[in-house]
């Protein structure tokens, strides 16, 4: 179709999409030319990730030393201690919560002091009566006392505490599992297994800790690569609203709106540019940390799915946050505020599984926390298709809802 000005006017979906892609391409060209895409999308996250990894020991994983204090001295507790402290041919065991784990035997009275003095990262105390309780449970004795394993840790070293708690959970879970089996057999009138009758859990049963924890443990370089990229992503996506405000104040928006371009096409084009930059930058950080630093992010398909979902979620939230500002400075301020608060809550600055229970729970209500949990699982090799699909679904929902609200707000505040 040709109008009075001699211009060709494509119609239909292709006609609607063409200006969107033009805006996207132009924005990408500008972001590359003024180097903001490279700085916030690649160099910044890589530098921050490397710095965090170095600060945490200069290695790509952390080794936690967990003390084992046997205050019971029963065959059962000794079996647990022996199984965990025995030298392994594969070196320290690996835990899904925070890295590699090695165990040391410690006297019960010295465990707390060793943790306080930083000789140990944390300690697990098997309490007096552990063996008796385990034996009674295994025998199906309803009156048996519950087994309680104590974990000692320094509150400021929450990652180590979390690792120790996980190990203790596995020990108690194993004992409780045996209690259930024993109870079931007793109810059915069946004889107890011989080993259980002696109150001596087999070494194989206790050694389940590393097996059940599974995975390779999260890679800190990969973790901080993702964490720092997500942080920078907030600033990248803030570009959409920020650029519209700048264009409005500089008169370019008026010129754009004097063309057949619609506000929806302009916003869509800019959002697409940000999404392309986000996914592209994320992939570059992924490849560089994998190639140059040997980081293990996990299965590529899962990582890619999470990268896309994370970028879309942060893009949506970024649109909403930046739509709150009416000036460039306000947009920048709101973006920075929300980015850092969510990064703190979501665990971007602390290691995987770190922080208090409340903080770890709160983290899952942030898009970055959700994403990092999924990236941690992927890196640790414990992610499943279902868990990644669930995390991606949550992130996409966050992105969709916040993005739509943000777009409507931007349309109202910038274009009126």
């Amino acid at each position, binding site marked *: 179709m040709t109008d009075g000005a001699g211009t*060709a006017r494509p119609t239909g979906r292709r006609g609607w999409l063409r200006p969107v892609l033009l805006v996207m391409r132009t924005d990408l060209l*500008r972001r590359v030319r003024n180097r903001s895409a490279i700085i916030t999308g690649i160099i910044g996250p890589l530098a921050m990730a490397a710095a965090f990894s170095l600060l945490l020991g200069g290695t790509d994983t952390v080794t936690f030393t967990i003390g084992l204090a046997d205050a019971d001295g029963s065959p059962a507790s000794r079996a647990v201690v022996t199984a965990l402290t025995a030298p392994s041919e594969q070196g320290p065991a690996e835990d899904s919560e925070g890295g590699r784990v090695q165990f040391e035997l410690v006297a019960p009275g010295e465990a707390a002091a060793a943790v306080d003095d930083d000789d140990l990262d944390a300690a697990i105390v098997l309490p007096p009566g552990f063996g008796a309780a385990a034996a009674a449970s295994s025998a199906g004795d309803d009156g048996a006392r519950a087994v309680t394993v104590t974990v000692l840790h320094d509150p400021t070293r929450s990652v180590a505490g979390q690792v120790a708690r996980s190990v203790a959970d596995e020990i108690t879970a194993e004992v409780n599992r045996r209690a259930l089996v024993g109870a079931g057999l007793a109810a059915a009138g069946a004889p107890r297994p011989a080993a259980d009758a002696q109150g001596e859990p087999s070494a194989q049963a206790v050694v389940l800790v590393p097996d059940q924890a599974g995975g390779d443990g999260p890679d800190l370089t990969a973790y901080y690569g993702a964490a720092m990229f997500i942080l920078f992503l907030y600033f990248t996506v803030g570009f959409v609203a920020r650029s519209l405000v700048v264009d409005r104040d500089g008169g370019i928006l008026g010129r754009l709106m004097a063309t057949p*371009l619609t506000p929806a096409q302009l916003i869509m084009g800019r959002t697409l540019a940000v999404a392309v930059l986000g996914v592209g930058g994320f992939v570059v950080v992924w490849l560089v940390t994998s190639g140059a630093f040997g980081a293990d992010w996990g299965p590529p398909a899962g990582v890619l799915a999470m990268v896309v979902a994370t970028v879309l979620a942060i893009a949506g939230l970024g649109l909403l946050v930046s739509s709150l500002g009416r000036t460039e400075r306000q947009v920048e301020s709101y973006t920075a505020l929300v980015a850092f608060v969510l990064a703190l809550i979501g665990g971007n600055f602390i290691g995987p599984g770190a922080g208090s229970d409340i903080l770890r729970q709160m983290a899952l209500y942030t898009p970055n926390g959700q994403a990092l949990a999924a990236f941690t699982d992927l890196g640790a090799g414990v992610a499943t298709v279902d868990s990644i699909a669930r995390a991606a679904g949550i992130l996409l929902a966050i992105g969709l809802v916040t993005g739509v609200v943000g777009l409507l707000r931007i349309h109202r505040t910038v274009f009126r």
Partner: protein
Amino acid sequence: MVQVGTGGQATGTSAGPGHEGATGEGSAAGHVLECSGLVRRFGDRVAVDHVGFRIAANETFGLLGPNGAGKTTTISMIAGILAPDEGEIRIAGIPMTTRAGAAKALVGLVPQDLALYPDLTILENLRFFGRLQQLPRRRLAARIAEVLEVVGLADRARDRVQECSGGMKRRANIAVGLLHEPKLLILDEPTVGIDPQSRNQILESIEQLGAAGMSVLYTTHYMEEAERLCDRIGIIDNGRLVAEGTRRELIERVGEQDRISVTASGPLAEFAAAVAALPGVTSAEPVETGLAVTAVTAAEVLAPLVAAGERVGVSIGSVQVVEPDLETVFLEVTGKALRD
């Protein structure tokens, strides 16, 4: 549908064939722009209050008014950037409200601000905005070459805008507005903040465009620009179009009166009141440098004027009699001087 002949839409280079075939919906007598009853409010403030005028084909229409008078808001509505709260706009008969896309394609806007991406080259800016105007690729390449010649930037096309001088940026700003051969070119104070040489270059370009047959809507608060460029002028103040006509019509409206510019210091308000009371004086208004006076015959009021100054205690530096011009008209119709 009525076929509207706009006639001679060349931009000083080569006119696109599309111009000749523009169709409108009842544009009266070849008017490129018809707007009526335009109202735009921002909260409680009425920025534009029932403004209406027409621009004929080949005509340069000036919208003259001080800063904040409502010029930019008016042209923003005409360019389709702002929706009017009331009123109607037609570009070559096409209503802006219901067929914005088609109407916008007939309008070229040169905003007051330098509406260019500074990190792109002049050429890249032209390509971007030309493609937004949906010019076919080959046509766009030809038009870019043409408009660069018009504004004298053919040899600087690959310079980044941020590296250009103020005058070059202004000219590139105009070039973007010309790309798609609009029927109506809107220029919003295109000479603000540039050196006299660049200003003159821009005014010459606009004169050439007008002479080549383009319809132009030119806003300014520089009286001399309006007098130099415009076939007809609308005076806008406080959001209202208070007078409209050719320069001669406007000057005739205030009568064959002389304007007396008095440089003075002291109690100017008292001085103005004393002078206004003199026989033969039609208005006396304090201005920054002294007093602006209109009189039927300047020679008859000069002596009493000086005497009045002595009487109220002002120190008169100079008295200058000037021919009636748009400044006089503005003073007459708005009751105040047109200040920068």
